[in-house]
């Protein structure tokens, strides 16, 4: 059970290893806080959907599994959307139109298809929870790098004071191009560490 949990954090990290869930990864990570919020919201959805799918895995005919999974996922996303609007209005307006896109986060559907629809509930929970946290981790890292270089702040706190003589934020970092390049470099670092551990570099 622990093995299923750990693998999502590093070895099979959904973003770096499997290239899943890219749209929210790249789109909302202009700040570390947004990245964290998106990561946690996604974790909630992937775990809840995992529980429901695992429990009902014997009832769903193979041919309609994709539509059924997506309806289950869309339901939980709508719940997250409404709860954020009701209890965390500020966060809700920051994540804005990207909350509904959790529905089409391939990470979530991918896990249901590959794992929870074939495994009992306790394994389903540890697998999805690990994947969710692994996803959140990368979102926070990416958000931190982009926020630090793109705005000079971290979680909203000023780290590099801007000003005529001070730090000049690199606007490209908060633009799409910066997102792709930063994630590319993080993925390269991930490869480097893995190869170093294996002793191949």
């Amino acid at each position: 059970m622990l093995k299923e949990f750990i693998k999502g954090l590093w070895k099979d990290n959904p973003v770096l290893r499997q290239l899943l869930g890219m749209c929210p990864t790249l789109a909302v990570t202009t700040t570390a806080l947004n990245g964290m919020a998106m990561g946690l919201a996604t974790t909630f959805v992937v775990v809840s959907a995992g529980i429901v799918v695992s429990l009902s895995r014997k009832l769903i005919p193979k041919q309609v599994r994709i539509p059924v999974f997506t309806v289950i996922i869309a339901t939980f996303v709508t719940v997250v959307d409404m709860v954020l609007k009701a209890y965390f209005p500020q966060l809700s307006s920051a994540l804005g139109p990207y909350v509904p896109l959790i529905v089409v986060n391939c990470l979530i559907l991918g896990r249901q298809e590959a794992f929870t629809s074939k495994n009992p509930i306790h394994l389903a929970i540890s697998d999805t929870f690990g994947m969710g946290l692994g996803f959140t981790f990368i979102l926070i890292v990416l958000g931190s790098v982009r926020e630090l270089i793109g705005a000079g702040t971290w979680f909203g706190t000023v780290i590099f004071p801007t000003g005529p003589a001070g730090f000049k934020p690199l606007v490209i970092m908060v633009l799409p191009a910066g997102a792709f390049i930063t994630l590319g470099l993080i993925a390269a670092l991930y490869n480097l560490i893995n190869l170093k551990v294996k002793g191949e570099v």
Partner: protein
Amino acid sequence: MKNLTIKMLLVLGGVSVISAGFLGYVYTATYDRIELNREKRVKEAIYKVLPEIDDYEKISAEPDIFKGTGGGVKSGYAVLAGGMGFQGEITMMVGVNEEVNRLMGISVLESVETPGLGDKIKGIDFRKQFRGMPILRQKGIKVNAITGATISSDAVEKIIQKAIKDVKRIH
């Protein structure tokens, strides 16, 4: 074959009905709070653009215009105005003084502009230019655009111009 089709339809239909029922429940459960949040944000925005008023009353709908009371010379109107930005609808509160010849300030309620560029319209550096900005008889106002976000800045200018017109109509 036929049995399978029926089972497929039943499962899909069943899942959809359960989902719709569940969502309907959550919707009604959170509806009041979401409305309350919205009203609270409107209220906060009014006090933000008309900081010295004691109270306000709604004097017109579509667009919603509020008149500040108390606060004497610093009183004025707050207009809930909206328009199309770069990515989607921008909703904001526009504060105008009582003589309708100066802006008092603006506050963005909702926008989905590009993070880091267009969404700087929410930031203080952009908003502070409107505090006390004179409204010219012919041209209205002129916005100092944000570098790299001309469309969002133009959208804000348009929304303010329209808000001024709306206030003048009832003034």
